[in-house]
């Protein structure tokens, strides 16, 4: 099977997953007792039946659940997430505005995690049992155990307030692609990436150690290849295979972490928007963000699958 066909198949397999996501999301918000309109009505005995019907029509909560679901789904499919209840503005605009911010943050967190984890993991594996390995493992353990919000506040305290090296507020007026943005991304990015970095590093180290014991490594050495080639060409790619698998699952962690980290750093992304939306009971916004993040996680897994296949030619044939 060619890589292209594999990718296509994987992409097709994403569809039922997304369908499931949409059902669950919609179900969570619409099958729980008390839809938005009935709550308005409960608050207000003065709302007439006609008004209630109008409101229901307006908020798309009239008719049987399946029809509402289909309506909602068909709107979502064309990028229409409905309107904010409070302001009446389109939710999609909000989501598209926030999404790049979260993607930028998530990507930075990723890059950070990978940039830290891979070299450290390699170093630790190659120097297994030595001081550097032990130290990096201790750091990794603490990295995994640090709560995001605590780390974020700590970083702000140390690097922004005491050392004055980084800003506390996000760059509201800089475009995301501006190089200066990196300075702003650093602290939140590090915060969001630390846990992932630590987990990745541990997996990187373990799989690297395992791979270093593989016969093909001996074989490569027996062919007189320099150790650098052995480690960085032969062992690294194999180790990355297991790292990629973990990386996909960690994406969900990063998405979840963005809620806390964006709030701590006032980052104008989907995470902080979600907190706001929940507080304000903006059902459509919460649903939109849930769907978008779920899609992001599914896509990340899809990408990981593809990357997995690119890294490891055996996968395509499974």
């Amino acid at each position, binding site marked *: 099977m060619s890589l292209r066909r594999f990718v296509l*198949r994987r992409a*097709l*397999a994403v569809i*039922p997953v997304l369908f499931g996501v949409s059902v669950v999301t919609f179900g969570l918000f619409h099958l729980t007792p008390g839809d938005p309109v009935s709550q308005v009505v409960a608050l207000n005995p003065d709302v007439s039946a006609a008004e209630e019907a109008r409101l229901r029509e307006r908020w798309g909560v009239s008719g049987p659940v399946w029809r509402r679901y289909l309506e909602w789904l068909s709107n979502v499919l064309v990028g229409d997430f409905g309107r904010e209840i409070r302001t009446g503005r389109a939710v999609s605009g909000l989501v598209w505005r926030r999404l790049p911010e979260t993607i930028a943050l998530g990507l930075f967190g990723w890059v950070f995690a990978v940039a830290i984890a891979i070299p450290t993991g390699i170093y630790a594996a190659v120097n297994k049992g030595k001081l550097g390995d032990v130290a990096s493992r201790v750091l990794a353990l603490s990295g995994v155990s640090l709560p995001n919000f605590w780390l974020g506040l700590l970083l702000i305290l140390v690097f922004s307030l005491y050392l004055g090296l980084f800003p506390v507020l996000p760059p509201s007026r800089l475009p995301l692609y501006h190089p200066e943005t990196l300075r702003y991304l650093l602290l939140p990015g590090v915060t969001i990436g630390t846990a992932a970095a630590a987990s990745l590093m541990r997996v990187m180290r373990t799989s690297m150690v395992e791979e270093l014991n593989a016969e093909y490594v001996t074989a490569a050495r027996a062919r007189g290849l320099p150790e650098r080639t052995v480690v960085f060409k032969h062992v690294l790619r194999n180790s990355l295979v297991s790292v990629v698998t973990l990386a996909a699952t960690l994406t969900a962690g990063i998405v979840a972490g963005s809620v806390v980290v964006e709030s701590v750093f006032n980052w104008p992304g989907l995470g902080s928007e979600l907190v706001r939306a929940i507080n304000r009971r903006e059902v459509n916004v919460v649903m939109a963000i849930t769907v978008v993040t779920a899609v992001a996680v599914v896509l990340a897994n899809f990408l990981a699958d593809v990357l997995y296949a690119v890294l490891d030619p055996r996968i395509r044939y*499974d």
Partner: protein
Amino acid sequence: MSDDDGDAVEPVLRVEGLETHYDSTEGFLDRLLGRSRRVRAVDGVDFDLRAGETLGVVGESGCGKTTLARSVLGLVEPTAGSVYHRGEDLTALSSAELRDRRKDLQYVFQDPLSSLNPRLTAGGIVGEPLDVHGLAAGAERDERVRELLETVGLKPNHAARYPHEFSGGQRQRLGIARALAVDPEVIVCDEPVSALDASVQAQILNLLSDLQAEFGLAYVFIAHDLRVIEHVSDRVAVMYLGEFVERGPTETVFEPPYHPYTEALLSAIPEPDPLWEGDGIRLTGTVPSPVDPPSGCRFHTRCPRLVPSAEYDLSGETWRSLTDLKLRAREADGVTSLTAARTSREGDGSPVDGGALDPADAIDPAGPTGPTEASRETFDALVREEFGLPDPLSDPDAEAAVAEAIDALRDDRIGEAAELLDAAFVSPCERRHPTEYDVGADHGIACLRYDGEFDEEAGTFADGSEPAGSAE
């Protein structure tokens, strides 16, 4: 190993038309799109196993031996067919009934370590079946465990050790003790000695033989090593791609007449004798995929003694070569795969300094460019070199057909070439699936060479075709 009583006793195990197909379909989506891939691991196997005898099953890896073993015991659910034990069809039993049956039918695994629970002691491992089947408890159980360990040549005080503390041979003894615990009638041994050293292998084989004598066990003994099979078996079945291609008492199977596959297997045994020279029959390739087994005789794609079609006057060797060319043309992506490799693909046409690599390659007949750009003669030569086809073929009609196919290949019309070859050269082996032909007492061979239509002496089919040459 045991006396052949020859009486028509009811066999302890009778397998009829056993088929085990797997679905290797990749998942939901494939199933949805109806892209089913049936792996025909075991495809219609019959045999009897009499009390106290050993049936050896031999074949290359991928021929379905292990699946057969597991299907017989119901560890894998067979797709079709029946396995009768004492007249009762095991395939019709419920899983609870089957579990109960396991007292009589036991399994010994190839890899003793991975089949032993690392967290149980030897005593625990051997005692487990006693617990499961409620055969013994308390002091009686401990006594029985000690007894079993001694029976397989382990010390009673080994009961407290864990599997990793044993050597490979000892682990296999443990596996045997576990199988013996329930006092079975039949033990299916799946490559029990393949992973063992020669000296230990001999110990285990002797042990199995002793146990058979002592407890009247019947074995289905699976191995890829003909030497072992020959040593332990009363009767032998040679398996290829899910089917038995030859069956018979051990002595007869290891004497001519052979199924060509048996012959090839025998010929490949490395003999511990420096001066011995083998037959030199060498099979090419590996066992084809059981997903889509070859038509006719499944062995025809590799068979060194392919029955030539009577249409042409060609040697068996040439026929083999033609079939190889045809098979490769069917699957090839590009013409280069059908020609001998060239010495050089360098732009200047001079051989890369690997001239010394292989003297035969020092001359590059095709020049620097791709094979299809080579001259007609050169290309023709390359193809013939790759497949060992004489130039010209001894039969002019055949030569004409081959030449036409080579021309098509040269124009990069591979599909067409394959069709031409398909139309011109079809061995009966490709068309007809051989049934088992009796060649002696209780000895059957599933090969067209033993078909009644085929006159073995004349080497020809009764329809008047010319004798086929032999591989020699």
